[in-house]
């Protein structure tokens, strides 16, 4: 997303820019809730049928719909929802019998921990691999890194997850197979890291590959520039040329991609959360859709969408800060 022209320079412009972008996000989010509401209304089956299962006689369905407040017209249901939303109330989930807000916030923080860790891992390892590859272009290191990175990009992550569980949880028993904390004892940071290790790696693998490929290309591009030759000619050490000049310039291309990867990582979390039984928002949404739990879907989508908006904004701001030409 292009950043608007910012002038004059300074902190206040950045703040104004962020405020403007956030304000622009509000209609987007509202539009989204309307779309979700309509889609959920259009797909066949309703929550009462999902709850009653085999016992969904027309009579029972009608009675339950009345009790759930689903017998009102659709637009009325929507406005009730929006009215409650403005008071910070996202309603009550039919299938979980608890406030949507509690469930969504708990689930979303779990997803943030998982996706955040994966994002850090893929940025760190992706950048290292990309830079090493570029600096030692065509060497065996480059070839080895490229080979591993290609495998990483190509492996389906849910399959990799199962494979890691099989090796490290079932056979070696180094890591737990599922969950976020030990079910007795535990609950502290080492326990969390222990549970986080396999899912975070699984989730990070594809994005690491993408970032590594891109960093390599960007670095090679920058290393061919005249000013790099000038820097070398000035007698700067190779280290300084690469990390001080080339790497910083290459980051301008790489950062928006990391922003996009943040989105992919959030999306990919859906599979990984299911495989590792991570209590995140992805697995919650999948279940909520299949049980037609409209309010839970609405709440979940709203939070995820807001997070996307924020990630994009953060990437744009970071890019602006790094690249003076964009100001």
């Amino acid at each position, binding site marked *: 997303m292009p950043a608007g022209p910012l002038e004059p320079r300074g902190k206040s412009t950045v703040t104004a820019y962020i405020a403007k972008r956030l304000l622009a996000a509000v209609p987007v989010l509202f539009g989204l809730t309307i779309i979700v509401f309509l889609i959920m209304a259009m797909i066949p089956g309703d929550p009462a049928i999902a709850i009653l299962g*085999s016992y969904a006689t027309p009579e029972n369905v009608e009675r339950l719909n009345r009790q759930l407040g689903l017998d009102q017209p659709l637009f009325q249901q929507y406005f009730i929802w929006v009215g409650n939303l403005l008071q910070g109330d996202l309603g009550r989930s039919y299938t979980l019998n608890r406030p949507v807000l509690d469930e969504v916030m708990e689930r979303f923080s779990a997803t943030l921990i998982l996706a955040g860790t994966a994002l850090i891992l893929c940025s760190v390892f992706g950048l*290292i691999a990309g830079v090493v590859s570029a600096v030692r272009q065509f060497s065996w290191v480059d070839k080895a890194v490229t080979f591993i990175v290609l495998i990483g990009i190509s492996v389906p992550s849910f399959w990799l997850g*199962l494979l890691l569980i099989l090796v490290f949880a079932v056979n070696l028993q180094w890591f737990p*197979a*599922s969950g976020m904390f030990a079910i007795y004892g535990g609950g502290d940071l080492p326990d969390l890291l222990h549970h986080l290790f396999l899912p975070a790696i699984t989730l990070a693998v594809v994005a690491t590959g993408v970032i590594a490929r891109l960093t390599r290309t960007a670095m090679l591009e920058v290393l061919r520039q005249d000013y790099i030759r000038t820097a070398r000619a000035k007698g700067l050490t190779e280290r300084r040329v690469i990390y001080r000049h080339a790497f910083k310039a290459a980051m301008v291309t790489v950062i928006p991609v990391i922003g996009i990867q943040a989105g992919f990582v959030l999306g990919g979390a859906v599979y990984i959360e299911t495989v*590792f039984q991570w209590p995140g928002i992805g697995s919650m949404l999948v279940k909520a859709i299949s049980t037609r739990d409209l309010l839970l879907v609405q709440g979940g989508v709203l939070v995820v969408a807001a997070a996307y908006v924020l990630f994009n904004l953060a990437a744009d701001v970071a890019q602006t800060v790094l690249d003076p030409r964009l100001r």
Partner: protein
Amino acid sequence: MKRLLAAALTVASLALASPSLAQTPPNVLVVGQIAEPKSLDPHAVTAVNDFRILMNVYDGLVRYKDGTLEVEPALAESWDISDDGTVYTFKLREGVTFHDGSPFNAEAVRFNFDRMLDEEHPYYDTGPFPLSFFFSSIDTVTAVDDSIVEFKLKEPYAPFLSNLAYPTGLIVSPAAVEQHGTEFGRNPSGTGAYKFAEWEANAKVVVTGNADYWDGPPALEAVIYRPITDANTRIAEMLSGGLDIMVEVPPDSLQQFRTDDQFVVHEQAGPHVWFLILNAKEGPFANKAVRQAANYAVNKSALVENILQGTAEVAAGPTPPAFAWAYNEGLEPYPYDPDKARELLAEAGYDGEELTFYVTEGGSGMLDPIAMGTAIQADLEAVGMDVSIETYEWNTFLGKVNPGLEGKADMAEMAWMTNDPDTLPFLALRTEAWPDKGGFNSGYYSNPKVDELLEAARRSTDQDERARLYQEMQEIVQEDAPWVFVANWKQNAVTKASVENFKLQPSFFLMLQDVAKPQ
């Protein structure tokens, strides 16, 4: 850069250095559940998954006798049924208290049923109570004195007792409902062998042994229920030692557990039947001979042995054998006989008309519906029936099948699990149960004799008399073939070898009162 690498390595080694997987502690049983429970209010839930917790935290007035589907006393010590079958008087067990300390008495029983059934009740809004229609035959509940409670029914209704043994009939603490209101489902209190201790959303539900349990304290200190929705992950967790019991093991994995002596595989046939609804109103299946031909054409043993890998048995008729007292032992399943099927089709003048077959992608009790649907399609094609499959997601599927197949399809998959031999035939085989009359007879089967037998069985309070009526009904229905009778599912579970006294019940409830795990 080096520093970054070092930091990353530190994080990794920190994780690696954490203690390796502990085995589950002694006297604590960890159960792998298939989903997060919805609520621990037994009147608010419908899923077997939730029942697995509830049956250990609450008691009903009656319960199923170990290993059967026959009722025996629980919170009620005894009962009388009036001759006309409309008044049930229960003598309650004395000296029982709820986990929250409040007394169990006749007033508490009345509170439970009024809360579910009376829209004016002050705590009716702690619902909804989706299965309260199990008790819609109740007219009034009266606390005659502290230990006598009387139910007046609107009309004779024989399944009443077994409905009381169902989770919807479990007795909750009125004091806890009054205290917690709509949050009662997360702060449950009953009289059962285990007391609720903790519910950490999406991670675990913990219940601890009730030392004062009226039926003797359980051997276990605690039971921890863990929701693990993905079957492969559940298996991995079982193999890596994180679970003591897992339920609903996929057929593919049972063999692996069978050959490993660290584990014990348990199986138990239950009140489940998997069948095909045939559209008896229009199209080829309006002809009885064509319906029978379909029953002969489908190779049920192959389905059960190959696709379900022995996790089910071939069904003979509409009533599962698990209802031992009501089951007609004389019934033999339709044999696999393609020649006979072709013969019947020729007699009926079937000329290869295309048949639409609704198949679901999944759903409660549906086993492996796509693979089964495809195999059935192939079997029917082998005798000359041209079947085209339409596949739908479960809720969409129910939305299509429940209103009736007329004008849409000729056949559909379906499965039911019930607690009384009355339920399924009464809701799905009577003329009065056609979809337009609010029932589940989506194939429009109608036989006045069957209607009469089912009505009579519902009015009778004599179990032998009911058994005779159900057995006669099964014979007629098998001959009329409104369904293709396919399979009765065997529920399975795997336990660690160190788990003692574990047993699956035909009710499909997970009863843990007697289970021990000393190490």
